[in-house]
């Protein structure tokens, strides 16, 4: 069945350093969503990417969708302690399909 993988599993960075997490799907996706889950909290939607090669920015966060629509990345510039949490990508094969979550990348920021 469809699988969504993420690397790395954990990342520890010094505050101010950059951070990137990568998401790969075993199948071509219709769209990909990114969620953030703070420690002890629930996943919160960040963004959805639909088009091949799409790049979207939210302040210090940059999201990319690969040309083949099988991979995606999230890059955070100059991390802050408020960025701490687990970042999940979630892919859909079609707009009517179920969402498959990746295992997440847990980010720790050392002040």
């Amino acid at each position, binding site marked *: 069945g469809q699988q969504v993988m993420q690397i790395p599993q954990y990342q520890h960075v010094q505050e101010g350093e950059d951070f990137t997490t990568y998401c790969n799907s075993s199948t071509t996706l219709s769209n990909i969503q990114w*969620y953030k889950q703070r420690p002890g*909290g*629930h996943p919160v939607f960040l963004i959805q990417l639909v088009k091949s090669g799409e790049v979207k920015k939210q302040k210090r966060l940059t999201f990319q969708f690969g040309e083949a629509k099988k991979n995606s990345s999230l890059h955070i510039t100059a991390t802050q302690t408020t960025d701490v949490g687990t970042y999940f990508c979630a892919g859909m094969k079609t707009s009517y399909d179920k969402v498959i979550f990746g*295992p997440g990348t847990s980010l720790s920021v050392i002040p």
Partner: protein
Amino acid sequence: EAGVAQSPRYKIIEKRQSVAFWCNPISGHATLYWYQQILGQGPKLLIQFQNNGVVDDSQLPKDRFSAERLKGVDSTLKIQPAKLEDSAVYLCASSHPWGKPKNIQYFGAGTRLSVL
């Protein structure tokens, strides 16, 4: 706008007991999801409802798990009998199938289940 409501927040039971979780989605959201999130893993979809119909329950262990959404609004997830490996956070989410963007999921705070 009120968010997704879930109860209880925490539940501790012994193995072989039964337990039920309740979820009330955001008003107007036709799609409701139940996820199981084991510590250190991503949410795993157990069942997806569109109004009161089941869209996907392929990963629901039907020998022990059941879910219903009788009036197309709130939903109940039941486990009977519980096993140790059912210890997890059970997350409910809802989405508007015609929202923009489509299928954004809004999660509740979850129910943390511990099976002893």
